[in-house]
């Protein structure tokens, strides 16, 4: 019983990471290391929450969350693709900007609210609660383990699979990956580098935005909280490495990292491990994965070649 609870909680804790990770994979696959995941998630959380708060409509809120994250990615894309600003600096700025913007809007709305708290209406929160899928959900054990989550969980997994097919099974995906490996060669082959960079990054940002909405709507129960994303965006950046830049691996990866995050609440206290160790675990594992990958030296598990370097056509 307890192990089922633990696994379910791990999946729930991993889902926002999954969105952040596959969003970031789309960025890195076109050669852009975007450290602004936290910022894009914050903007998405804020726009999704506030629009949901004002319209009482779940679907419009989701659209707004996507648009919010995409807006963050658009800023990043304009700066790094068109103006060729340094990617690391721009990404960090985007993080600080996104968190600041979300909190700023949050303060403003809190100041206006009468009760001193912002809570989404019941009709939205009800849609997001975990619900057993009729029929399948009543299977013992498996029903709880596989068919009892909130819609975000399934959406995240489906998105990851679709993106995986897109990146590794379509011609467009091949083109996109080639941009990430060597934009000059891709350009010479007639691939529209700038266009595909923009498209991938904006979609990736939107997916990050939905991950942000997850943190505020599910994790925080639909009540506005300052700094609601709380560092998950950074873990997502680490998870991209853990997942070898592959969306399907991101599914396992994010659930494993989700499990790390909740481990300390489920491991019996009789294990004499200090709490701080659990907090460190995800990052320790990422470091180990990096080391193992570099020892194995397999090309397909490596970071896209041009990641972090802007493509300047005239310098070819």
């Amino acid at each position: 019983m307890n192990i089922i609870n633990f696994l379910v909680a791990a999946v729930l804790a991993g889902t926002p990471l999954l969105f952040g990770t596959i969003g970031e994979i789309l960025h890195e696959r076109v050669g852009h290391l975007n450290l602004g995941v936290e910022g894009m998630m914050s903007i998405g959380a804020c726009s999704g929450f506030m629009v949901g708060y004002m319209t009482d409509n779940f679907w419009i809120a989701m659209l707004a969350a996507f648009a919010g994250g995409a807006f963050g990615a658009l800023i990043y894309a304009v700066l790094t693709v068109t103006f060729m600003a340094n990617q690391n600096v721009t990404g960090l700025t985007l993080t600080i900007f996104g968190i600041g913007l979300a909190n700023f809007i949050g303060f403003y709305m809190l100041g206006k609210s009468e009760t001193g708290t912002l809570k989404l209406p019941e009709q939205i929160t009800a849609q997001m609660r975990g619900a057993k899928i009729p029929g399948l959900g009543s299977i013992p054990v498996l029903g709880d383990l596989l068919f009892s989550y909130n819609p975000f969980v399934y959406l995240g997994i489906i998105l990851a699979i679709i993106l995986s097919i897109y990146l590794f099974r379509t011609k467009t995906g091949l083109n996109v990956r080639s941009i990430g490996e060597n934009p000059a060669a891709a350009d010479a082959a007639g691939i529209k580098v700038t266009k595909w960079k923009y498209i991938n990054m904006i979609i990736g940002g939107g997916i990050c935005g939905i991950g942000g909405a997850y943190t505020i709507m599910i994790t925080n129960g639909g009540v506005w909280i300052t700094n609601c994303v709380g560092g998950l965006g950074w873990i997502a950046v680490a998870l991209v490495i853990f997942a070898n830049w592959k969306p399907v691996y991101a599914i396992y990866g994010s659930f494993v990292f989700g499990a790390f995050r909740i481990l300390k609440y489920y491991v019996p206290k009789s294990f004499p491990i200090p709490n701080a160790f659990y907090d460190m675990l995800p990052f320790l594992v990422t470091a180990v994965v990096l080391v193992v990958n570099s020892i194995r030296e397999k090309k397909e598990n490596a970071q896209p070649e041009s990641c972090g370097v802007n493509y300047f056509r005239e310098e070819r």
Partner: protein
Amino acid sequence: MKKKVLGVLLCVAMTAAMMTGCGSKEEPAANEAPAASEAPETADETAAPAQESAAPADAAAGEGIFKAIPKEEIKVGVIHITDPAEGSGYTYTHDLGIQGMQKTIGLEDSQIIRKNKIPDTDPTATENAIRECIEEGCNVIFATSFNYMDTCEKLAAEYPDIIFSHGTGYKSNGTNFNNYFGRIYQSRYLSGIAAGLKTESNKIGYVAAMDKENTEVTGGLDAFAMGIYSVNPDAEVYVKVTNSWYDPEGEKQAAEALIAKGCDVIGQHCDTPNPQLAAEEAGVWGVGYNSDMSKDAPDAVLCSVMWDWSKYYTTAVQSVIDGTWTGENYYGGMKEGLVTLSELSGLNDPEAKAKIEEAEAKMLDGSFNVFDGVIETNDGSTVGTEGGTLDDATITGDIHWYFKNVVEE
């Protein structure tokens, strides 16, 4: 080239927008600002206050050590660790206290200077903020967070005419630098009565920010557990530690782990209402902290353990006006109204009200002090002596045990 210039401009615009986001709202929302969460409070609850004299301020026998300052010339500086408008439980409740003091005494807005978002881990920033207050003419400084303590001590020596009052710490100099804190464990005991009567599974959960190392958290949990034991000796208290003063996600997950274990009342010493929201979602109950969390989770919250800092701020500023400031430390509780229990919600057991009032009356007349007599801990040892009660220095700095009905798993 043009592109580069544009790029730089965009960067600048983004940074500027970000700055606006951070620096705005110098003054807190005067009306109802949010209450729930709390930004990182770092170490300010690791406090061990009132080592020397813990007498409440009203014991001061009218003999001040400073000349009376006319009300019109009073200027109060407040150093906040976060932004009161942020909906931060900690800073928000402190600022409500300042606002209450301002209203009771009748000070103008210009007589209160707030320095918000001063990180208490940064002594230079703290010192600058306090010096700015002094330059603007403040004669009383309230520093609300634990790590401001050493800076206050240093500046108190440099400015002997200015009063420094520091919250949740333990240092003081007996003249112009004192310490203030409160007996929150009293409210926690009362909230335990409500929880103990409500539980059906006889399993009660508690989301704690810090583990046994931290006396404030541990003492509060023990008081809660003792309150439960007083009405329901069969109930057990399960504790989960987030290891952080502010971790919205972890606080929710800890509560969910407790609920999965079968706990049907969730208490908390952490700052977001997430444990209460988790309880509401699962259809169980909870006890909130810092502010009345009924507004966040109306279908779960039985009652909330709350601070009313205005009681201290009013007493302190009034004593400066009257010339009765003594520099003594302040350690207020139920009696002073510094700590309170919110109104019981309609979800409570019908017996709860009477039982809580009974215990409260005993606390107020001094016949009961929570940590009385011999207390059994959960590792089989005992604390305290027959007929005695733990002294304030122990309560604030040396509780590293859990009461016998607490289960660590």
